[in-house]
C-alpha cells in the first residue's frame, strides 16, 4: 500500500494554490504557483474595511511582493467546527453550544461547506465537509458530553481534514478546558498548522477557579486563559481567540467569528526572489495607514 501523495514536489502545502484551479481565472492567467494570505485588519479593536491590495506591503522572506486582492465572494468557504464535548460541557453549556453552532449555519452561503468534529477523550468526525445543512444539523443533535479532553489531537484532525481545494478554510475550535489526553504535543500541531492554509479561531469559555483562604473562605475567580496551545495555534495561523464570558455569549462569539472571517482580506501573489522550498517568513503591513494587521506568520513550501 502506498500512502505517499503523488504531488509532493508540486504542492507548496495547502496554503499555496495553483492558479488554474482558482475560480477567479481572470486573476490567475498563468500556471504559476501562487501564495494566498488571509489578512485581518483592525484599528482600536474595530474591523477596518474598504482596503485594496495597494494598501498592503507583503514581504516573503523580507522580499517585497506584488500582491492582488481576491474577492471573497468568489471563494468557497470550508468551515471545520471542532467542538469540545468533554464532561465539563454537559448541561447548559452543551445546549448553548448547539444553539450557537446552528446559528452559525445561518451566516453561510449555500455553497459553503461545513464539517463537524467533536472531541472528548476520542476525536469523532460527525460529518465530513458538506454543503448539506440538514446533515450538519442532524450531526449537531448527536453531540453528547462526557469524558476527558483531547484538544491537540482534535485540532490536528481538523487541520488534516482540510482538503486540497481552492476554498478558504476556517477552523473554529470551541473548548472550555485544558488538554488531558492528547498524544500530539503542541509543537507537532503547530508544525502541522504551518503546512496548511487554514485560519484557526478559538472560542473559549474562561475557567472559574475556587480559591480558599482562612480569612475569606471560598472565592471564585474567572481566569481568561486560552492556554498556550490555543494562543500559539491561532497566532500562527493568523486567527485569534475570542472569549465567551458565559454560555449565553457563545452564540454571539460564534457569529462574530464568522463575520470577522468574512471581513478579512485575501491577498495573493506569485513569489519572486525567494526560494521555492522551505519555510517562508511572511510580513504583512499597511502602507501609509494605521491599523493592526493579523496574518499567518509564514508558510511552508515543499
Amino acid at each position, binding site marked *: 500500500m502506498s500512502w505517499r501523495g503523488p504531488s509532493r514536489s508540486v504542492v507548496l502545502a495547502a496554503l499555496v494554490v495553483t492558479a488554474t484551479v482558482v475560480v477567479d481565472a481572470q486573476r490567475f492567467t498563468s500556471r504559476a504557483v501562487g501564495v494566498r494570505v488571509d489578512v485581518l485588519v483592525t484599528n482600536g479593536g474595530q474591523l477596518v474595511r474598504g482596503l485594496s491590495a495597494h494598501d498592503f506591503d507583503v514581504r516573503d522572506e523580507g522580499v517585497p511582493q506584488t500582491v492582488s486582492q481576491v474577492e471573497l465572494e468568489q471563494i468557497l468557504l470550508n468551515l471545520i467546527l471542532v467542538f469540545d464535548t468533554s464532561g465539563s460541557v454537559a448541561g447548559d453549556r452543551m445546549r448553548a453550544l448547539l444553539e450557537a453552532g446552528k446559528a452559525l449555519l445561518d451566516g453561510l452561503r449555500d455553497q459553503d461547506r461545513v464539517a463537524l468534529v467533536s472531541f472528548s477523550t476520542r476525536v469523532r468526525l460527525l460529518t465530513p465537509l458538506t454543503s448539506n445543512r440538514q446533515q450538519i444539523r442532524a450531526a449537531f443533535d448527536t453531540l453528547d458530553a462526557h469524558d476527558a479532553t483531547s484538544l491537540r489531537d482534535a485540532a490536528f484532525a481538523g487541520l*488534516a481534514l482540510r*482538503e486540497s481545494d481552492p476554498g478558504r478554510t476556517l477552523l473554529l475550535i470551541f473548548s*472550555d478546558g485544558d488538554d488531558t*489526553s492528547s498524544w500530539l504535543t503542541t509543537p507537532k500541531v503547530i508544525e502541522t498548522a504551518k503546512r496548511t492554509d487554514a485560519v484557526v479561531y478559538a472560542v473559549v469559555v474562561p475557567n*472559574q477557579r475556587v480559591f480558599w483562604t482562612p480569612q475569606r473562605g471560598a472565592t471564585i475567580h474567572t481566569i481568561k486563559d486560552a492556554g498556550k496551545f490555543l494562543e500559539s495555534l491561532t497566532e500562527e495561523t493568523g486567527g485569534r481567540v475570542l472569549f465567551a464570558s458565559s454560555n449565553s455569549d457563545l452564540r454571539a462569539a460564534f457569529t462574530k467569528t464568522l463575520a470577522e472571517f468574512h471581513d478579512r482580506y485575501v491577498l495573493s501573489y506569485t513569489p519572486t526572489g525567494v526560494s521555492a522550498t522551505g519555510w517562508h517568513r511572511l510580513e504583512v503591513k499597511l502602507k501609509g495607514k494605521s491599523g493592526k494587521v493579523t496574518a499567518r506568520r509564514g508558510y511552508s513550501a515543499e
Partner: protein
Amino acid sequence: MVGFGDSLRTFLLHGRRGSDVMIARRTFLAVLSTGAVFTTSALSAQLAPTSPYAHVLDLYRAGQEQAARRALAEIPSAEIEWSQRILLKAFDSTVGDESPRAAASMRVAALIHTERAIAAHDRDNSPEFRYQVRMARTYVEKLASRDRSAPFPRTWCLMTMAYLQGRFSLRAAKEFGDWAHDSVGDSPELFLAIGATQEMGWTAQHEEGADSPFKGDLKDAERAYRNALAAQPDFVEARLRLGRVLTLHGDTEGAVRVLAEVGEGSEAAYGYLARMFEGDLFERRGDDAEAERRYLAATALLPRAQTAYVALAHVRHTLGARAAAAATVRATTLDTSVPDAGDPWFWYARGLSWRANGYLAELKEMMRQ
C-alpha cells in the same frame, strides 16, 4: 494484581485538570459505598458508644455511607481529633482485644476521611482536603508503625497516589510518594507510582507546555522504574515506562533496547504502547518512515484504539502525504461507535489512576477481614 486489560475495562476514566468532570468522584464514591458491609459494633472499648465519632464509624460500617459523611461534617474538628487520639491510644493497648478492634476502626476511619478528602479536592477546597488527608494519614501511619509491610497502609498509599495522579494533582502525589517511601516501605508498585508522578510532571511541563507547579524529573523517574524492575524483573509496566522515560531524555539507544523487550508475550495494550513509544522515538531521531512503520504496527495490535491512527496521520502529514493523512484521520474518527476509554494511551497518560479502583477494592476487602 489486576491486569492492565481488566482495569481498562473496569476503571472509568474521568481525569480532569481544571474544573471539569465529577464522574470519577461519583464512581469512586459508589465503589467505596458498596464495599462497606460490616455488622454494627460500637467502639465501646475505645470511644463511648454515644460519641458522635463512634456513631460515624458505625454508620459507615453499616453501609450508610452518605449518612456517615453528613454526620462527620457535623462534628467539630476538636472532637474529631480528640476521638482520634483515643483510637490511637487504644491501638497501643495491651488489654484484651482492644488493639485489634482499634485497628479495625482505624481502617474504617482512614477510608471515611479519605472519602471526605476527595470530596473536598473535587470542590477545590484545599484546606479541607489537607485536613482530611492528614487525619487519614495519621491512622495509616500508626497502622504501619506496627508492621511496615502490612497491606492496608501500602495499598492506601498507592490508591491515594493513583487518585491524585488521575486528577493531575502531581505535587500532592509526589509528597505522598515521599511519605510512603519513609512510612510504609518500598514495593515495586510504589516505585512505579513514584516514577509515574515524576514522568507526568515532566511531560506536562516539557511536552504539553503546561505551567505546572510540579515540574517532574526524568532522572528520578528512571531511578524509580529501575528500582521497580530490580525488585520485580518481570514488571512489564515498569519496563514500558522506563523505555518511555529513556526516550524523553534522549537515550534513544537505551530506549530501543528496553522497548523491544516489551511486547513479546505481553498483553496487547503493553505491546501497543511500546510500538507507539518506538514510533515517537524514531520521529525524534528524524526517521519518519520508520516511525510510520511502528505506528502502523500499533494499529495492527489494537485496531480500534485511536491514538496510533492520530500519530500515524501526523507523521504522514509531516512526510507530505496529505491525502493519506486525511484518509487516516477519517478512518479513525468516522467510527463514532468506539467507546472513549478503549485506548491504552489514555490510561498511560494518567499514571496509575487506572489502578485506583483495584486498589480500593483491595482496601475494602481488608476492611472486611
